[in-house]
């Protein structure tokens, strides 16, 4: 076989590096879909609730339109989520064996208590229009959305245990769960949960804002909406284009404003939760905090710009050009004077506690005996941290500007601004991805970071180098990396094209009944709408 030539002994490629790239790619990809599912799901549920409360048709239209986009995205999250559940055993068998006693439980609970709920009730929602009593139908969506949020909680419990292992004792060389309460109320997990949910809402807010802006711009371009001398909108109707009535304007202006407000509130939420996270990180993973700053020496200043090779993994070549004095201390501990330990101080501490070289244990494979580098790749942590904050802040500011610009009921006719609004959709996605890359890469060289509060025989940690499956060859990993990455790339193109198509179609794409020129039924036997439809299943496919 061609790929059997790539053995670990041959040193051509290293299974560990490929496995890490694979994990990074499939997980970041999965997390493009997840925040939109959580955020948009919540908003669609709110919109449908508003429809029930007010009976206003624009809320029904918003529910249908955003619901359609939600489903196109949701299925990609489902499909790529299966990989997540399998890949620990497939590519990271040593990790699975080591942590299984504590890490498997939240994953199994996620499937049993959350994902079942989400999938089953979403199926009821999709196929249950007109079939279920209206209130039950709405409840199904809320239950599905709650399922997706609970699902995020369990996954973050699992991930947070890797950042901050708690509730375990080392027995026979493996951490065993002794305190489930500690595992499931891990402060790292609780804060990460709020950070993730607010991050997801920011994604959904930007999504609504960008797309609604485009639709309002279209209405102006098509001459449907005009503005009077004061700039106030005069809402019109199109006689030729289906669905372009006055309610259509209400759909988009409301969507835009809801999106902008959600984006701003969500960003505020990420700021507050992120601040708490930084303080926890300062205690729990000091090296990650130092690497986020490319902070070599102990100090108090937050770096605005560091030059030199922040990508180097030692500190010989990093110069902080601009710093805000005291800010780093504030981030880390809430005052302006506490010295934040830098890389140069931390490395010897880590070396003393966890050794300078990997042991000769066969579980390290060809890496046995190698020197351990305790400094994460600082180019990634330093810039990842800044991209997260930068993209997030930019999106929130843009949302504020958008609210101001649309105060008179529509958007300016500028094509450039419209494009900016659409491109802006990407910013919160970027912030989410950068945040995850930062927090996962910043944990290296550990896959389970040591908890500084534990010491001696209780010390729980695992080097990433010993986590990979020993029996799986680099060739197999290359095959799966290439296969998954190319399939994911194709599917991303398909998803974006499909979303684009439905976005261009507007509300009519989700509510064909708004278009009077459409055929009703093949046979025309039953009356359109009303009671006749209750006799058959809702055909969603």
């Amino acid at each position: 076989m061609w790929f059997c030539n790539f053995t670990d002994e041959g040193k051509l490629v290293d299974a560990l590096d490929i496995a890490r790239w694979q994990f990074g790619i499939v997980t970041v990809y999965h997390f493009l879909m997840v925040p939109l599912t959580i955020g948009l799901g919540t908003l669609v549920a709110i919109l449908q609730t508003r429809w029930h409360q007010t009976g206003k048709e624009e809320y029904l239209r918003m529910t249908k339109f955003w619901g359609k986009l939600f489903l196109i995205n949701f299925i990609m999250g489902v499909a790529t989520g299966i990989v997540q559940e399998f890949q620990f055993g497939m590519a990271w068998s040593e990790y699975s064996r080591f942590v299984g006693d504590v890490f498997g439980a939240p994953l199994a609970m996620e499937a049993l208590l959350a994902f079942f709920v989400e999938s089953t009730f979403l199926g009821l929602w999709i196929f249950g229009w007109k079939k279920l009593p209206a209130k039950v139908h709405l409840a199904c969506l809320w239950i599905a959305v709650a399922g997706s949020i609970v699902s995020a909680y369990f996954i973050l419990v699992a991930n947070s245990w890797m950042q901050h292992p708690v509730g375990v004792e080392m027995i026979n060389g493996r951490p065993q769960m002794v305190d489930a309460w500690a595992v499931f109320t891990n402060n790292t997990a609780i804060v990460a949960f709020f950070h993730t949910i607010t991050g997801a809402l920011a994604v959904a807010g930007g999504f609504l804002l960008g797309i609604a802006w485009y639709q309002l711009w279209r209405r102006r371009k098509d001459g449907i909406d005009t503005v009077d001398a004061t700039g106030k909108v005069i809402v019109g109707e199109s006689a030729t284009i289906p669905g372009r009535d006055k309610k259509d304007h209400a759909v988009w202006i409301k969507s835009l404003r809801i999106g902008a407000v959600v984006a701003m509130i969500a960003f505020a939420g990420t700021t507050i939760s992120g601040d708490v996270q930084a303080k926890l990180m300062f205690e729990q993973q000091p090296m990650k905090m130092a690497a986020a700053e490319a902070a070599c020496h102990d100090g108090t200043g937050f770096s605005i710009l560091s030059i030199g090779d922040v990508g180097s993994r030692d500190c010989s070549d990093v110069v902080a050009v601009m710093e805000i004095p005291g800010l780093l201390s504030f981030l880390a501990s809430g005052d302006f004077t506490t010295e934040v330990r830098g890389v140069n101080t931390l490395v010897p501490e880590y070396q003393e506690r966890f050794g300078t070289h990997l042991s000769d244990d066969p579980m390290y494979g060809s890496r046995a005996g190698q020197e351990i580098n305790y400094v994460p790749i600082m180019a990634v942590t330093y810039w990842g941290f800044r991209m997260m904050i930068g993209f997030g802040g930019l999106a929130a500011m843009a949302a504020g500007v958008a609210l101001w610009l649309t105060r008179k009921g529509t958007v300016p006719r500028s094509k450039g601004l419209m494009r900016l609004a659409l491109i802006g959709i990407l910013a919160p996605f970027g912030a989410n991805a950068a945040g995850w890359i930062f927090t996962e890469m910043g944990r290296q060289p550990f896959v389970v970071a040591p908890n500084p509060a534990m010491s001696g025989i209780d010390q729980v940690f695992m080097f990433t180098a010993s986590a990979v499956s020993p029996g799986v060859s680099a060739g197999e990993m290359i095959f799966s990396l290439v296969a998954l990455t190319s399939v994911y790339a194709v599917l991303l193109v398909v998803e974006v094209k499909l979303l684009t198509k439905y976005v261009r179609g507007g509300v009519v794409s989700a509510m064909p009944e708004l278009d009077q020129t459409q055929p009703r039924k093949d046979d025309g036997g039953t009356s359109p709408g009303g009671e006749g439809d209750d006799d058959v299943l809702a055909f969603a496919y």
Partner: protein
Amino acid sequence: MDFLPTLWFILIAVLWVGYLFLEGFDLGVGMLMKTFARDEKERRVLLNTVGPVWDGNEVWLLTAGGATFAAFPFWYASLFSALYLPLVFVLLALIFRAVAFEYRGKVHSDTWRKVWDWAIALGSLVAAFGIGAMLALTTTGLPLNANGDRVGGPFAWFSWYAVLGGLAVVGFALIHAAAFVALKTDGDIRHRARRLVGRWMPVGLLPLALWAILVALQHGKWFSWILIAVAVVAAVTSWLANRSDREGWSFLAMGVFLLSGAAAIFSAVYPVVLPSTLDPLWNLTVENASSSSYTLGLMSIVAAVGVPLVLAYQAWTYWVFRQRISVDSLPAPVDFAAAVGAKEKVEAMGGKA
């Protein structure tokens, strides 16, 4: 005998049976898209029989995987890493299949639908075969060393048992799906599905029966043969019920066949969960592969609450969508994108209506 690990072994077997029973027919329906359905209308009827439920069915697979990780991390780690390549194909198949279900009807074009039809059919086939092969190998063994790692290269897992297991699940899924379609549809498609069950059931269920018999011959306990006898009786009952137009009974009896067949297989190998073909000393068993009793106890409480709840609301889902559907009840395919204007409208329809 340790109580909790045994309980969890049984529970995981139950999760797999639940998965095969539920996703069995939607995998089969996927395969029937390309073999049984005669035209676009029939394909849409098939899709909509499983439309509201397939995603919920698939979660049984994730739960079986997750529960194995939580309760038997060593089993999970060894099995999944040893079968690395086949599982990559299973994952790709499941990805394509899931996306195809949702995206197929979203563009009004023949080419588009044809591509996704293939994704559904092949995805279902590969997933069913791969899952079957994996389950067969966990009962017949893999070349594992003392650490539980596969030795002998990327294809060392291959054995004829894998092929048999793959065929067993594919065969079962196809017959089970035909019985499901007969139960859920009306008109010509219903009658053809019933004829398919009558004609092909012996062939379709044979590999699963053969797998149970082979495992029973090797490790059988006294009750293995009773379970196999029950399975055979259930299959005959299912066939007879199908012949006398009792589709519901036929479908349920097929479930009994699966349950007793799987019980025969899993109980025969107990307490081994994954044998090593190199040295019986390296077998993974319910004792040496399991999590601590604390974790198993916690998970037992969760399962005691969660599993009945899942069964209840999934049963309700099937009740809500209990009506038969037929080609006559199909609404016209949707042409959206009308709002984008006349020129783009033609484009969006993908040519032909």
